[in-house]
């Protein structure tokens, strides 16, 4: 009995000491977070004077599919690579970015975080489920077997057939918590205010019937604020559950979080529906929550581009970039797409639908800005054509990757060459900190590119004219108008836009700058029109009717090279809407088109001495899409 008392005494003292130690640590961490969030420690510009480049959608070995596809490098390597260090890829190739990124969101799938890694390492006698057992063997075999195991796993997820042992969130709880805390720790460690911003995040992988409703969740805060919050599981969820989770997070911690939908092109029309998810007319509550929590959409990435489809935009000769293969159906191809689905799958149509819903409800659920990102599953964020590390480790550079059938489409018309080396997120911000870049996303002062780093500025207003390009034109733009992502109230006269595009300093010249306008006409129908507003060699390249002729091409396919003998380094104009009607509800976004350049498949063709069949798209015109500026009728002010 006495022994017991002594032991208890020792324990009590030790515990008290431990508690003091713990509280001390907590305080220190809280201070560390304020510093690591860059609030106060970084000098900020008076207005967003620089564009920062990033990827908000990168997977590492903690993602259930990425690990299965074979990646064996994790968040730390991912962060080192993004900030410019040389790392060794899973397949043993050295990889480095010619130009580092300014920010990165590591977005591993919240469902079964780390599960394939655990399944492979689990003692086989304890794996009873026959499916899991087979997958474990395939994972251990590695290489193509491993890739096939994950293709089966994604199919199972899409068809709601994931074995119970793997999907039970309680069973995965402890593992998730360990991996998540480690994720937060590493992200904080690599976040360097003013130099490189590392965001905590995860991917929420909702996929009813195989239709892609995935979102990336991005936090404004570091580990001390995020604290006990765990990533939100997605497979069985509903999108309103995710928004409630985000709201609860902000309320309980005072932090910030947002969600970024992506791959609407693989949703078979359900990403941007006119109705609510219950099939009833969309409610005001749903519309305002969506507008609040999803301020930007990822419009372009490795699994295709979702700006528009030729079926929806027959008069736009640049529509349909990177829809090859992806337009055929949903993610696992368990349902083919039909053209009536495209409206809910592509972003331009969603922006138009938003106007129409707003006319009825008074709230626009689809008032979102645009970004690009990679969705790379290699832990390497690259969107460069000449440095493309593929969608996943199974298609890192090697000879057969371009023509291989892709199991994600269970060999139904999707091939390696359909993958795009795309894209990046560009943010106009006052400095490179979590707070500044997150807030740029919130106010939609962001744009998407398909991989090149052109710089694009837009201001919309009513007082801009011919002489709006003085030395202080950017300051003037902020003072007398709104930047991309902003909203204008109709003043009874046509809005004008100050637009400037500068080429990627290491890349190709620019072909043209366009304004894409969408509006609701007097009869309530949505309309769209693409205006060429300024282009290279304008003196010699006159518009025929309303179309500017194609710029031609300098690409030498045999060398995967091009020259900047055509196109312009800079294009700028002040453009006023010639079709303005008072009271019209409209949006305007800018699309910048580069001159033709070789795709990654041509670099592969040289590296591996390949002859590519005719159907392979080898040359493209890369582009940037800005967030829109909206014009609201006066009646909305009331």
């Amino acid at each position, binding site marked *: 009995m006495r*022994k*017991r008392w002594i*032991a*208890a005494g*020792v*324990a009590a003292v*030790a*515990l008290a000491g*431990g508690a003091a*130690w713990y509280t*001390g*640590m907590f305080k*220190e961490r809280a201070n*560390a977070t304020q*510093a*690591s969030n860059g609030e106060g420690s970084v000098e900020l510009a008076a207005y967003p*004077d*620089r564009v920062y480049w990033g990827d908000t959608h990168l997977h590492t070995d903690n993602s259930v599919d990425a690990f299965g596809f074979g990646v064996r490098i994790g968040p730390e390597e991912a962060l080192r690579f993004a900030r410019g260090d040389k790392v060794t890829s899973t397949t043993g190739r050295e990889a480095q970015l010619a*130009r580092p990124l300014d920010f990165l969101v590591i977005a591993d799938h919240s469902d079964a975080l780390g599960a394939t890694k*655990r399944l492979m*390492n*689990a*003692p086989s006698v*304890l794996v009873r489920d026959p499916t899991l057992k087979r997958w474990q063997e395939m994972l251990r075999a590695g290489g193509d077997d491993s890739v096939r195991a994950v293709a089966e796993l994604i199919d199972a997820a899409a068809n709601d057939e994931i074995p119970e042992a793997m999907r039970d*969130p*309680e069973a995965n*709880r402890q593992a998730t*918590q360990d991996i998540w805390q480690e994720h937060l720790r590493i992200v904080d*460690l690599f976040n*360097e205010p003013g130099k490189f911003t590392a965001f905590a995040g995860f991917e929420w992988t909702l996929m009813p019937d195989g239709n892609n409703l995935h979102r990336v969740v991005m936090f404004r805060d570091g580990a001390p604020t995020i604290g*006990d*919050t*765990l990533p*939100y*599981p997605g497979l069985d969820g509903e999108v309103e559950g995710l928004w*409630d*989770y985000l709201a*609860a*997070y902000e309320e*309980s911690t005072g932090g910030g979080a947002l969600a970024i939908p992506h791959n609407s092109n693989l949703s078979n029309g359900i990403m941007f529906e006119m109705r609510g998810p219950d099939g009833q007319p969309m409610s005001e509550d749903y519309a305002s929550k969506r507008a609040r929590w999803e301020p930007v959409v990822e419009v372009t990435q490795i699994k295709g581009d979702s700006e528009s489809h030729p079926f929806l935009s027959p008069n736009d000769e640049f529509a349909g970039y990177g829809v090859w293969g992806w337009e055929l159906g949903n993610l696992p191809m368990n349902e083919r797409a039909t053209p009536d689905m495209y409206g809910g799958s592509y972003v331009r149509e969603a922006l138009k639908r938003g106007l129409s819903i707003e006319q009825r409800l008074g709230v626009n659920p689809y008032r979102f800005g645009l970004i690009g990102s990679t969705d790379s599953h290699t832990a390497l964020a690259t969107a460069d054509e000449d440095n493309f590390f593929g969608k996943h480790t199974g298609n890192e550079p090697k000879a057969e990757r371009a023509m291989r059938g892709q199991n994600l489409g269970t060999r139904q018309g999707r091939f390696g060459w359909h993958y795009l080396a795309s894209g990046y997120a560009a943010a106009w911000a006052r400095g490179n900190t979590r707070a500044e870049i997150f807030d740029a996303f919130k106010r939609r002062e962001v744009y998407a590119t398909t991989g090149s780093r052109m*710089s694009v*500025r837009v201001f919309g207003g009513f007082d801009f004219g011919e002489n709006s*390009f*003085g*030395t202080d*034109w*950017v300051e003037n733009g902020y003072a007398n108008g709104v930047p991309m992502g902003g909203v204008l109230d109709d003043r009874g006269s046509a809005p004008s836009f100050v637009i*400037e595009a*500068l*080429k*990627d*300093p*290491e*890349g190709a010249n620019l072909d043209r700058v366009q304004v894409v306008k969408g509006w609701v006409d007097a009869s309530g129908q949505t309309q769209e029109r693409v205006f060429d507003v300024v282009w290279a060699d304008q003196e010699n390249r006159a518009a025929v009717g309303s179309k500017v002729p194609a710029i031609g091409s300098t690409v030498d396919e045999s060398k995967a090279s091009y020259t900047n003998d055509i196109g*312009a*380094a*800079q294009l*700028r104009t002040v453009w006023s809407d010639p079709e303005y009607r008072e009271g019209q509800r409209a949006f305007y976004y800018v699309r910048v088109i580069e001159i033709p350049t070789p795709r990654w498949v041509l670099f592969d063709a040289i590296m591996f001495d390949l002859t590519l069949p005719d159907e392979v798209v080898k040359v493209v015109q890369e582009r940037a899409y800005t967030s829109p500026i909206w014009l609201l009728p006066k009646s909305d002010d009331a």
Partner: protein
Amino acid sequence: MTLEERARQWVREPLVHFLLGGLLIFALFAWRGEETDPASRLIDVDRETQAQIALQFERTVQRPPTDSELDGLIEQWVREEVLYREALRLGLDAGDPVVRRRLAKKMDFLAASSAEAVEPSDSELEEWFAANAARYADKSTASFDQVWFAQAPDTDAVTAQLQSAGEDWRSVGEPVSLPAVVEERQLQAVGAQFGTAFADELAAMEVGNAWSGPVRSGLGWHMVRLRARKSESIPALADIRQRVTNDWRLATAQSREDQAYALLRDAYTVEIDR
């Protein structure tokens, strides 16, 4: 060495932390011995355990569980506990690579966790910073003025224009949204905005108050006045203290794991059959 100094040294000693950690665990086991004994067939789901279970749930779904949900969770917890104890009884923990790795990881964590909490002293940090200074070297910076032209301008004409413009030099080039005046920007950042070829030119150019060029960039042509250039320098510790502390902590955690392991390893004789 005064007693106080000696005590302070002891407080910093990783071995002491390690032993204290071990003592803590020992004490905990001694205190609650009977209850967590895997041989026992009594499972007591006390209030504290229930609170922990409820908290876990709350962390995931951001609300406390309902009574029936909590009952379900407790039932699940009990099931896990029963199976866990039976697994121990059957010796399933032995020879299981995952259990083995997990426990080993916990030992590492115990050794490293003391480093997580400790704030390095100034002298400790300074010493470490001095030894690792190279990795904090700031890259070269340049301060310059520039005007831009889409096509190569006539050098003599544009130089004359710039000279006669004086303070008004900004009006000489064509309008572009590149900064006309750049202060102490790292050459790498200059390269990101103007192209690396331009940054390379700046690295080689003569510093002074004269305009030179035209210099070609990824965006066109520039007349440049390179006012100052600083070569690579080591920043003051005070300016990057947070970053250095992070790195020190990572390195310290690593070395404490190694030290703790070395200590334990010494007590073992390892024979590897050849």
